[in-house]
């Protein structure tokens, strides 16, 4: 997909004034957080499981080459094919070849962020293959020609009235005066429309939440059942997964499953956890005749051995964005690429380049909620800081910011000078505010004061206050 991350500031501004979007984002601010908390509170071992899950991924990443080889061997012995794709382009062409060989005109798809990452739908359309998204949220945004705004709730930026309008526009063979005012009727209509697609499709494409090296299995975790119909009914099943999805054993999968659904939707377990191994066996009454796995690197191997390796533990639960004040304010599209929120702010620069996505690691208050809720304990704020450092080192931020930072560093690295300057500046600032300790306008800080007041400092510096309090304490003790 076309990256618009360089336009983050513009995107964010228009998101803030988009009333439909702001209304829809209200559901994120409340729903996800409370549900996650309730399910975490009900499992005393949750934190222990986070440590266990983290250790599993760390071990796997340290031996990634060996587990990938073992996984491939097991897929082959179960009668499946493994295709290795270094880049998005490689993956697209492998998938197209499989579809061409199957004579595919229609391809159904389960929800998969990886196929968003490689821009599969746009590519298919250019090549004359019709992709049909079957996850309800993905289906809705496909009708709108949009991309997901959230990694587990792709249509979270929409309200039901917008979905109704799209269904009326696209499903024009249905009765025009039918009632579509409630989500129930919208869901029922999507279910009916998509039913026939599963049977028409020649190829079904899914992502994978895990690849299990012990057994050569791919695992999908879903709630709707569309992923299972997608991979069971067509003649060919293609799994598209990135290399860091591999785990050693089924027992390891079980550990991560316990933190995945709880962190994502607050469920103890998603409705369908499906472990697939190879194609239909002799005598099987259903299932695909061919089973392919496309293993995608697309920049991940370059994150290994760097300060960004921990990001490869990510299991795509979405908890970081569900708890992010920036995501709550601007939604997912403003981030301008496939992965929004804090995980996207770290991953996008790694995969698409910091030159295009420098704004993303800057779009954080470093409040730390993302790291606090991450089931894999990924130090997201620390990694955003690493990206800020790299951005600065490469001279990618604007000159005013760079000079500003330099000027600040000049003072900050010289404590005496800093205190001297502060002892002049702070009383001066509080003098100018008058009785209300807030600034409505401040030169050079228009970006802040245009939207909100700047609280004025107390009329003494922190250190001055500290000293006088300590002195008062000692006096009281004496």
């Amino acid at each position, binding site marked *: 997909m076309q990256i618009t991350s360089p336009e983050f500031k513009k995107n964010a501004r228009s998101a803030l004034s988009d009333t439909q979007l702001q209304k829809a984002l209200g559901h994120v601010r409340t729903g996800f957080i409370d549900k996650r908390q309730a399910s975490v509170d009900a499992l005393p071992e949750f934190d222990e499981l986070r440590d266990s899950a983290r250790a599993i991924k760390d071990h796997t990443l340290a031996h990634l080459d060996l587990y*990938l080889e073992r996984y491939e061997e097991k897929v082959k012995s179960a009668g499946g094919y493994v295709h*290795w794709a270094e880049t998005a382009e490689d993956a697209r062409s492998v998938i197209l070849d499989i579809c061409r060989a199957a004579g595919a005109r229609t391809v159904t798809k389960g929800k998969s962020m990886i196929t968003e990452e490689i821009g599969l739908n746009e590519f298919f359309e250019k090549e004359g293959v019709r992709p049909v998204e079957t996850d*309800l949220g993905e289906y809705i945004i496909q009708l709108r020609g949009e991309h997901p705004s959230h990694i587990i709730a792709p249509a979270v930026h929409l309200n039901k009235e917008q979905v109704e309008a799209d269904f009326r526009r696209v499903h024009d063979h249905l009765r025009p005066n039918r009632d579509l005012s409630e989500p129930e009727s919208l869901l029922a209509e999507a279910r009916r429309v998509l039913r026939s697609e599963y049977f028409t499709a020649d190829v079904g494409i899914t992502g994978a939440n895990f690849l299990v090296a012990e057994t050569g299995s791919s695992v999908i975790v879903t709630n709707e059942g569309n992923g*299972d*119909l997608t991979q069971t009914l067509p003649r060919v099943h293609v799994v598209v997964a990135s290399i860091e999805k591999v785990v050693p054993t089924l027992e390891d999968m079980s550990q991560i499953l316990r933190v995945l659904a709880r962190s994502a939707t607050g469920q103890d377990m998603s409705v369908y956890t499906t*472990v697939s191994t190879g194609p239909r066996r002799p005598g099987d009454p259903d299932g695909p005749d061919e089973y392919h796995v496309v293993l995608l690197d697309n920049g991940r191997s370059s994150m290994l*051995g760097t300060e960004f390796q921990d990001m490869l533990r990510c299991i795509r639960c979405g908890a970081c964005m569900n708890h992010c004040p920036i995501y709550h304010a601007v939604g997912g599209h403003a981030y301008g690429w496939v992965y929004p929120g804090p995980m996207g702010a770290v991953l996008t620069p790694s995969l698409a380049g910091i030159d295009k996505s420098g704004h993303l690691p800057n779009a954080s208050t470093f409040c730390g909620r993302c790291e606090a809720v991450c089931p894999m304990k990924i130090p997201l704020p620390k990694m955003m800081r690493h990206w800020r450092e790299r951005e600065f080192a490469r001279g990618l931020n604007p000159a005013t910011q760079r000079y500003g930072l330099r000027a600040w560093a000049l003072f900050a690295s010289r404590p005496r000078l800093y205190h001297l300057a502060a002892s002049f500046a702070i009383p001066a600032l509080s003098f100018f505010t008058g009785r209300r300790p807030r600034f409505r306008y401040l030169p050079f800080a228009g970006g802040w004061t245009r939207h909100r007041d700047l609280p004025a400092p107390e009329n003494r510096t922190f250190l001055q206050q500290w000293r006088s309090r300590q002195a008062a304490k000692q006096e009281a003790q004496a």
Partner: protein
Amino acid sequence: MSGREAILKKVRGALGAPLDDAARAKAVRQRLAKAPTGVVPARGRLPEEERIALFRQMAEKVSATVEHVKKTGDVPNAVAAYLRSKNLPASVRMGGDERLRAMPWGRVKALETKTGPADPDDEVGVSHALAGIAETGTVALYSGVENPTTVNFLPEHHIVVVDAKDIEGDLETTLSRLKKRFGKGKMPRTLNLITGPSRSGDIEQKLLLGAHGPRALHLIVVDDGRIGNKL
């Protein structure tokens, strides 16, 4: 260089791992051989009766319905009663699973049982579970010659028969049962872990049952009179 070699080379380079590092290979071999069990929640570690009660409680929490019957022979009548209560036609789809075939379906008058994979018009599918998992109210089903996967997903109503003695405390116990049956490292083509009926929250975060899979999941626990319907 093929994509495979290129990716593996990049991974090894980034990790600073030589091609034939015996210690790394051994670590991987051992991990795969031992398949260590990690943290297993205490929740499911209960005496049988309480474990079965927890299974029911957790399954009902995710909107499945649960009933107990004494003997496998009672299952066809329970199925027929379920169909009547939901105003459904007297017809069910099931695989040729011998545990299901052994049940006296003929004793229920006018109940049609269709064998084989599901087709889009089937309203009710019946399956037999490998195991129930108490910690989450999950049923485990596997595919095979006599167990079509489509029965679990296409019909609007899915009825799953579970033997009370197969209700385990946690997922790990079920996985070791699976390994015993198929051999370690071997798997049925599809293992389905099903927790409640299908659902979606994709429109305004409002949770709705019956997305693409079954709208209703009904679990029939055969308990040999050990628990009964006193729960």
